[in-house]
């Protein structure tokens, strides 16, 4: 996790809100550093994490997590982390016959399917065992990323349904958190993706949006992060929004106010 991002968000591994949906999105840049942040953050916070990793391999996340101070292999062995490796599973589904239903069952279907089997998988991984005693604080679902599901033949509505079910189970029933990454292809006129992004934005409590700089590439400032806290209850308080610029380094990401990059001060 990045300590500076924790300060900006006002959270620590020991005290963080539960029952929230956090939406990560990136536009014209790579927002995967946010996924790495939340993965190591929740593992350090002693939560049970179900990570649906659709775009990279396990060793990729593991190597980066080790730089951030967390070992995914250890977490997996202890049962703290349930890791679904999408790339490896897709090869298994396509080329080897599967007997039991697989979480990514929709890959075999010719027409647009649904994510029911994936939801079952998430629910089975995160719901506490019968005894009710669990060493972990609360469950967390992390998805990297949802836009890939659209590329795999699903419709935006199916993905939104899946997120709705997950939110109902993980946030409301189990008092856990859900974090998901969605790409923003707005200038590419990707309508399905736009529907997904808008739909999730309205449901989320916290939106972190990583954007490339409007002026183009810069060596010292890699992008801009917009943080939007949304109040979903109809209270008088309005949504709060903050913008920072960031620079990604080898083991950390540093944040600073707009125009205050250390390189130019």
């Amino acid at each position, binding site marked *: 996790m990045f300590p500076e991002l924790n300060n900006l968000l006002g959270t620590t591994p020991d005290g963080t809100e539960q029952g929230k949906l956090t939406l990560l999105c990136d536009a014209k840049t790579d927002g995967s550093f946010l996924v790495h942040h939340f993965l190591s953050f929740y593992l350090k916070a002693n939560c049970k994490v179900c990570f649906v990793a659709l775009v990279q391999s396990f060793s990729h996340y593991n190597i980066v997590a080790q730089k951030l101070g967390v070992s995914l292999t250890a977490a997996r062995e202890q049962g703290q982390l349930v890791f679904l490796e999408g*790339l490896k*599973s*897709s*090869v298994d589904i396509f080329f080897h016959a599967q007997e039991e239903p697989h979480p990514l069952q929709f890959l075999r279907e*010719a027409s647009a399917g649904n994510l029911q089997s994936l939801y079952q998988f998430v629910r089975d991984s995160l719901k506490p065992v019968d005894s009710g005693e669990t060493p972990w604080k609360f469950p967390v679902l992390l998805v990297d990323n949802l836009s890939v599901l659209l590329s795999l033949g699903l419709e935006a509505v199916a993905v939104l349904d899946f997120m709705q079910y997950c939110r109902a189970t993980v946030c409301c029933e189990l008092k856990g958190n859900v974090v998901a990454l969605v790409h923003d292809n707005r200038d590419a006129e*990707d309508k399905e993706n736009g529907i997904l992004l808008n739909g999730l934005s309205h449901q989320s409590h916290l939106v972190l949006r990583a954007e490339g700089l409007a002026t183009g590439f810069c060596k010292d400032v890699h992008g801009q992060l917009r943080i939007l806290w949304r109040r979903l209850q109809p209270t008088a308080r309005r949504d709060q929004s903050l913008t920072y610029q960031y620079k990604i380094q*080898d083991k950390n990401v540093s944040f600073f106010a707009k125009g205050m990059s250390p390189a130019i001060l």
Partner: protein
Amino acid sequence: MAAAATCGAGVLSSGCVASTAGRSSTTSFQRRSKASGADGGGPRLLSIAGTRPSVRNGQLLVSTGLPALDQLLGGGLAVGTVLLIEEDKYSIYSPLLFKYFLAEGIVNGHTLLVASAKEKPADILQELPAPLLDDNGKKELEDVHNSKTPESDVNMKIAWRYQLQPKMQVGPVSSSRFGHYYDVSKRIPQELLGSSKWHGFFLPEHITSDLKGEPCSLSGDYMKLLQFIQNIIYTEGFDGSNPQKKQKNILRIGIQNFGSPFWGDDICCTENSDNSHRLTKFFYVLRGLLRTSLSACIITMPTHLIQNKAITARVRNLSDTVVGLESFIGSEKETNSLYKDYHGLIHIRKIPRLNNLTCDESDVKDLAFKLKRKLFTIEFLTEAAAH
């Protein structure tokens, strides 16, 4: 970026080598320290010809065949990833990059898999450019391809005691250079082609065979290509499924003109294609195949023809490295004095961040290319060049 890896015993300076990828959770990205993983205390893992570890994270890299492009991509193309070349308007320069990639594979002794729907793979291979080698390079090249034939016994006159010793196991003689230069005006010599190992996938030849097993959701053509690739990877052990294999090698996959009407896809013809997800699904499953094997893939796509920009965006998101070519032919830039020495612009749209938060992006984004009589060069576009 100096490409001087030591040859012979293949000891890597960073101590990271590619591990085999099997049905277990290891992928080709996993580091393995020199101390562990010895086969019964036997010989250390020898490096694979034509590869080197990345300076940044030890990731295994192969050359694209263009040293200038290697440098712009952060040292080379990572093994297990897809390089997407967005073709220029009349597809004049992108076949060159495609051929450089394949020629580099032949020079390094890698296995090739060439897939095309327009040209026969054998014809594509005939047109590969000839490598430019100095004398050292020529000798190494002979060794790479004649490594099976034992050296003739040379009678030692002075050090005759040494003749009785068992012959030293010279490891896989790898070409000590990473990245070679090619002469585009000459064809690759036939002996090089003849001693190389390659598999061809020519779509019209596969079009009538039936699919085994249940019909899958991919279009028949893409599914056949995926099965062909998976078959080669599995039978030749690129995914570590055959640990008895003496020498690990890289599989270089080249797919040309992908997504064009030749492949039976209509994304270049209509805006609302019903089957647009076939292409993106192919990219996803291909990524899964590559991540679990010692292979690297180049795909050229006529993205300028794709009507629905959303598909282009999705394909770019699903590829690891994306390079776009923009040629000046027929555009108003042709008469622009700034560009008069060049044939087009090259855009490095995306570089992967593998095992890392950061990546080695080049600081300069204005890059132009020029095809001289013998060489394809990439240069930084500066104001000085205009005068």
